[in-house]
């Protein structure tokens, strides 16, 4: 188990190095004078010069890189121009909002896509199968920001089932005590059902928008891998042993079929984290995506860079976790390492 963890960690190191190098390069690519960029539009020449020395832009590239890595190690991502706050703290306070949204969306997507994929495979070639194909293709074709708007229009403006698409909580409620940063969990822990309900209602539409977008890879993978498994030798053995269709499909086929689906989660997260930015913009969700978009609009560069870096590190960590979980679930990997 420890071996498994260590071997997976080792594979993540090149990714992290790559991410750091790329984010470093991105700051050097800034058109014109990066110092002017970081100093903001209205900065005086002295301020720009100051920034230049502070960022070390007057030094050689390797020196700059070392300084950059040094800053990262100390958790220094610079300060936001518009608020003057350190980017690290701002991202840290906003991260739970994004994480809650993304994970909730993932749960919704998995809850729909996997049964859909299994059904499509078991009923291969029937209308259920075709419907699954059309629904999932339509799902990936919907721009996630457009889905969000449509849902807001229908469920907020027309039907008034959903609350106004602004933020994580009804404006008259105060947030639950900060335990995990996830409103759903924190409100439950503090036994505040009203807050829980409000948080859930706020979360529903943005999460569904994101879930619809990520249905397709999950459902298709489930279908494909389920079909492959259903055609395999050991399923024939299971049927020849008279095991009930339920046992054959769920205990025997599904548990095997789900393994490749776990691997697909990496791609799904890439989808979700990208969609997250757009959905946060639509629903005024106070997460890091909205933070980055606002910073982009005001040409406030440090937050954008911090955001890209955070997302990449998050993504690498997620992939690592997925790999690790896969190793735990599949005895062939678990026992071999």
């Amino acid at each position, binding site marked *: 188990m420890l071996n498994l963890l260590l071997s997976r960690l080792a594979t993540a190191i090149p990714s992290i190095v790559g991410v750091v190098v790329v984010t470093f390069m991105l700051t050097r690519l800034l058109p014109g004078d990066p110092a002017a960029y970081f100093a903001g539009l209205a900065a005086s020449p002295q301020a720009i010069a100051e920034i230049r020395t502070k960022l070390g832009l007057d030094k050689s590239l390797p020196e700059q890189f070392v300084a950059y890595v040094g800053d990262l190690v100390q958790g220094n991502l610079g300060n936001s121009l518009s608020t003057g706050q350190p980017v690290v703290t701002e991202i840290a306070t906003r991260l739970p909002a994004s994480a809650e949204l993304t994970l909730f969306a993932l749960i919704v997507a998995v809850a729909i896509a996997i049964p859909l994929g299994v059904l499509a495979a078991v009923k291969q070639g029937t209308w259920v199968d075709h419907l699954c194909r059309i629904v999932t293709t339509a799902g990936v074709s919907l721009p996630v920001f457009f889905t969000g708007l449509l849902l807001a229009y229908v469920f907020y403006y027309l039907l008034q089932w959903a609350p106004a698409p602004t933020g994580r909580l009804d404006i008259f409620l105060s947030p639950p005590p900060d335990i995990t940063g996830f409103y759903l969990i924190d409100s439950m822990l503090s036994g505040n059902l009203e807050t829980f309900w409000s948080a859930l209602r706020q979360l529903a539409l943005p999460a569904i928008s994101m879930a619809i977008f990520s249905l397709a890879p999950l459902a298709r993978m489930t279908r494909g891998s389920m079909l492959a498994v259903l055609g395999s*030798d050991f399923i024939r*053995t*299971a049927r*020849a042993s*008279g095991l009930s269709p339920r046992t054959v499909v769920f205990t025997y086929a599904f548990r095997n079929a789900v393994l490749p689906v776990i691997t697909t989660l990496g791609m799904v997260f890439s989808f979700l984290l990208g969609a997250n930015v757009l959905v946060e913009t639509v629903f005024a969700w106070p997460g890091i995506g909205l933070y980055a978009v606002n910073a982009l609009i005001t040409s406030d560069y440090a937050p954008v860079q911090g955001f890209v870096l955070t997302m990449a590190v998050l993504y690498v960590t997620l992939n690592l976790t997925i790999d690790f979980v896969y190793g735990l679930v599949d005895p062939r990997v678990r026992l071999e390492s």
Partner: protein
Amino acid sequence: MTAIPALAVEDLSVEFRTRSGVVKVLEHVGFSVDKGETVALVGESGSGKSVTAFAVMGILDAAGKVTSGRAMFGGSDLLALSERDLAEQRGRELSMIFQNPRTALNPIRRVGRQIADVLVRHGGATRNDAPRAAIEMLKKVRIPDPERRAEAYPFELSGGMCQRIMIAIALACRPALLIADEPTTGLDVTTQAVIMDLIGELAGESGMATIFITHDLALAAEYCDRIVVMHAGHIVEAAPGRALFDHARHPYSAKLLAATPGETVSLDALASIPGGLPDLRRPDLPPCRYSGRCERRSEACDQPLPQRTVGEHHVVACWNPL
């Protein structure tokens, strides 16, 4: 010997619908197995042995369809049973083991559990007793250190070990009929013998009927009472092992035997028979599917095949038998 058939297959025909047309894989296949008897089903690869077994078990692919026939077993026709009733019988009254034992087992389930699953399903043990009963089965198929092996996954075991697990699964509920589809293909020679002896012994103990599918005539002769020869979806000859070896009547059987030097020498003989199997998609297949390869072919061979009884329990489907 009063023969009571455990399984009697009559007039079984199976078609597969494929992209390139309908394949008539089996045509009017008929044979029977008596209680306590071991019958070999031999024929080269692609002759329809597995499809016969799958049809009887009711586990054909979705593309395969039984177009005629009966398979009488314990007073009922297996081919007419509902999927539900048939599933009740499978694994309890009739069982099957396959070639490639390593892929025939669920790769992510402990082998003990896989045996227990069958026991629980057919009432052979309660959920609580099943693990112990599974270990008992492992002992029965002579797996050393059964308590520990029950916790193993298939990838941790050798091919021979996996085949023993398969046998344990198949025999867990003491079925009346076992179909063993090339159970030793891919195993080394020593393991082959061990597995065959094991099956023979366990079958003898319980008076179980066994259909042993193989393309190895020598193996068939060694372990079986009777041999049924298949060619391109037809049964061309059925005879007691001795009778077949002494005097094979069908030209195809004779070729098979000629290619098998001695009863004890195992040889993949069938590859050396000239010509190939006919294309079963052809709409104008001749009545005798061997005629394209046959040296004794005559005018008469264009008539529907006869079933000639040429000795005690010895039947041949040929116009000009040897």
